């Protein structure tokens, strides 16, 4: 009985030691209260496929984005399934602060120059806003010479405004909605309107921490729309500083004033362009 009792005391002493450490840790946790943190990494890149994602880079970040869209896959073996044709966009974007980014770019297709302002209005938080909302205003200049038409500067301008609403539902799945307004000063046919409203839908499924599948679709409202709605499917790989995005899309243009209203390929008939976006981040100013 006596030895049993002392054994009990020893046991209690040991468990009480453990008890104290655990108790102290819990007390610290209560006081530290893991704060309301912003939800990061909704998308890996500032682009999803052709269009923008809600992501803005941190202050002082300069991002270089090189994008290619090859010719149509169904153009056959003679054109090496489209690889003989290549359209390039060279882009640079600079983050003035954690929420505001300015960007410029040049597209070889139609010789388009583009510029945009992108601002994060609301950030998704672990407790708080359920979504991230980012505004993008994009202006582009169509600089291709058209001997058949008198091209004034006004006629060359196109504008797009988009409200990007995204939610990282869980570490695996992110979804984004993109209500968009497109205004083109010059349209191809008289029946087309200069105004166009569209709703974009995009998503990312993470296959691992660094690889994900992406999809993007823009539905255009209205009856007299030419061509097809833009659709793209892709895979993205992030390697720390670089994001590689490989995609298949029926759009050849890489600015929203191009791919939203004037996508000419029919995806399900094989008018698909293989393409990629490669981005590289440089921190040119301190972020804090």
């Amino acid at each position, binding site marked *: 009985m006596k030895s049993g009792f002392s054994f009990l005391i020893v046991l209690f002493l040991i468990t009480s030691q453990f008890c104290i450490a655990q108790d*102290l840790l819990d007390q610290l946790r209560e006081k530290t209260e893991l704060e309301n943190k912003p939800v990061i990494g909704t998308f890996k890149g500032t682009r999803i496929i052709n269009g923008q994602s809600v992501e803005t880079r941190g202050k002082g970040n300069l991002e270089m984005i090189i994008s290619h869209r090859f010719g149509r896959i169904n153009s056959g073996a003679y054109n090496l399934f489209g690889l003989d044709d290549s359209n390039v966009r060279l882009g640079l974007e600079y983050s003035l602060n954690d929420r505001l980014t300015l960007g410029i770019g040049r597209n070889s297709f139609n010789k388009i120059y583009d510029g945009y302002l992108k601002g994060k209005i609301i950030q998704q938080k672990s407790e708080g806003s359920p979504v991230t909302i980012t505004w993008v205003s994009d202006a582009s200049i169509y600089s291709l010479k058209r001997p058949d038409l008198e091209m004034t500067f006004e006629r060359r301008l196109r504008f797009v405004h988009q409200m990007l609403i995204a939610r990282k539902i869980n570490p695996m799945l992110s979804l984004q909605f993109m209500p968009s307004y497109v205004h083109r000063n010059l349209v191809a046919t008289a029946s087309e309107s200069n105004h166009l409203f569209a709703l974009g839908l995009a998503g990312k499924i993470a296959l691992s921490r660094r690889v994900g599948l992406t999809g993007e679709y823009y539905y255009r409202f209205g009856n007299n729309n030419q061509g097809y709605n833009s659709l793209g499917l892709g895979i993205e790989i992030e390697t720390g*500083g670089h994001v590689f995005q490989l995609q298949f899309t029926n759009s050849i243009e890489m600015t929203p004033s191009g791919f939203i209203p004037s996508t000419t390929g029919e995806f399900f008939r094989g008018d698909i362009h293989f393409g990629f976006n490669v981005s590289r981040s440089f921190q040119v100013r301190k972020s804090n």
Partner: protein
Amino acid sequence: MKKIVLVLFFWFYACEGHGQNIKSETGYVKFFSSALIEDIAAENNEASAYFNPETKEAVFLIPIAGFEFEKSLMQEHFNENYMESDKFPEAYFKGILSGFRAGQVESQAIAEGEMTIHGVTKEIRVPGKIFHSGSSLRMEAIFNVVLEDYQIEIPKLMFQKIAEEVEVTVKFEFLYQ
């Protein structure tokens, strides 16, 4: 029966704590790793700790999202890809600081106990120094953490080479109440 009640009483008493815990709310943690292209460093001022000078027990708690980098994208990758801070929001140590002598201006101490990082717990032994001045205690230690020990993966497909071992510096100041 009386004895059992007595033992239970002492046990609860022990659980209530030995009273004399001192707290540090301004813990500083830094890690540094030298890599081929660029060094990686981050600082955290959100760490906190409790220390009991009588029993020499200590717990240290470090919120992972509190690490600040010079490059914001690196900070995002640190949280998203390496530490998975949404799943494992904190790192902590609990154990004994043996070698501590109350009243001594400077004592060499060894922290022995369990360290948990990235959800993986390991027994560690870290030598450090404790400085005593007036109403405060200051603890400092520098030690290495091998990423593999805590199942922090370094991907093969990386352009920046990341060192497999990082140097961690900790400084905690405790005030006697």
